[in-house]
């Protein structure tokens, strides 16, 4: 299984680069994952999306629907794409340490 290196620790990821074990996620991992998705700096707005995704995932065990994500964070879908160029699923969910979403995000 491929892995990314975060501060000397190997974190396993799946073939699409999603974290294999969501419990291993921390902010340093998020930064490392962000770089793989073309996000060089995680701003306050990035964290707002990432934290919401994590909170929802921890509560419900799945990623939220895309419209829910937009409504709850107050960002338009366009703004989400501006923050995460590869989109809410491949970009934001990956950085938030969620497993690869199968649904609509």
């Amino acid at each position, binding site marked *: 299984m491929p892995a990314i290196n975060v501060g000397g620790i190997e974190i396993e990821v799946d073939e699409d680069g999603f974290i294999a074990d969501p419990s291993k996620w921390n902010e340093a991992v998020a930064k490392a994952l962000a770089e793989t*998705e*073309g996000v060089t700096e995680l701003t306050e707005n990035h964290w707002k999306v990432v934290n919401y995704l994590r909170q929802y995932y921890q509560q419900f065990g799945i990623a939220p629907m*895309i*419209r829910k994500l*937009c409504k709850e964070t107050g960002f*338009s*879908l*366009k703004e989400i*794409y501006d923050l995460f*160029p*590869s*989109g809410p699923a*491949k970009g934001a969910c990956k950085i938030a340490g969620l497993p690869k979403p199968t*649904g*609509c995000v």
Partner: protein
Amino acid sequence: MPEASQKYTFCRTLLNGPSPSHVRELGNSRYPLAMYEQGLAAGESAYDHGGYINIPELPSGVGVRNSCRPEIIEESAYLRILQPAGGWLSAGTLEKLAACAETYGKSLIHFTSGGTIEIYTTREQMVPAVRELNAAGLDVGSTGNDLRCLTACCGPARCDAALIDAPALATYLGQRFIDEQQYPGYPQKVKSGVSGCPNDCTRAMMQKDHSFIGVYRDLPQINSEALLAWQEAGGDLKGLLASCPTEALVWTGSTLAVDPQKCWHCMVCINLCPAIRPGRERGVAWVAGGKYGHRGPQGPMVGYVLVPFIPIKDNDYTTIGDLFGAFLELWADNAQKKERVGDFISRVGPLWVIKELGLNAVPQILISPGRNGF
């Protein structure tokens, strides 16, 4: 067709005859003709079903067809370009489009049945190709669960039957909802079409989730002098009377009249006889839920007339845009995953939709279905 392709027996057969040949066009481009030949020989396409691909900067307007014969071609990625409403492209724009297909693609352009334009390219070439398309005034979009490219008939720019400016309305909606066409955030795709009159040349009512049809609310206008001239020139009055689907045309022996209770404001008599012109009170009928697709509980269906007449003043389409936007929000918030608009409306009921949109339900069409719905 290149020399090497002489071995393509099936493709060569399709080159015979005097009419234009798609194989000639494919063969004159860098399309891998071996894939087509493979499909013809095997009796099924050498392409596998496709999907949407993730290209940073391009949330929509990109996709791929997978290949069953990776030794011929690994995959066929494509860019989907939003076609200008009405389907016009100036020769200059077409040249720029051609240059783009030549530089980044397979030297081939596909005008799709859904009213978009596709260029087959590679994933790596997509972003630079789109930059060039943008410079030519074009843009991509209309793939996945988003608002698909708004198509329109040519309208008054080229047709005498047009009751509303169909391409202008489609352009207005296209511009107002451009983000919805380029960022896929809906439960399912939504197709929309605008037709200038009830002839509905774009077949919007049957294949689009939303159709906006130009309609007239008053009666067809009959010019008696022109009618006489038409009859003298050999016009078939009997045929004209018989053509009316509701038998609303009444001939008194000397004059022709329209029964206002029977006329349902179609275009049949108007199409047949130049002495009959559409009424002057014109607006838009909003029909929602049409689809050809066999998926979903309802299967293929014709849409529901949600609003039979929306008046248009001074080319102001704001009311239609507001209604359209409100419906899209309502549908997206309440639809099940992958539920098309038609299946959604039939599940929740058109009355519920009308109420949620704050419109007045006027049920006379249900009480007396044969009567004038306006």
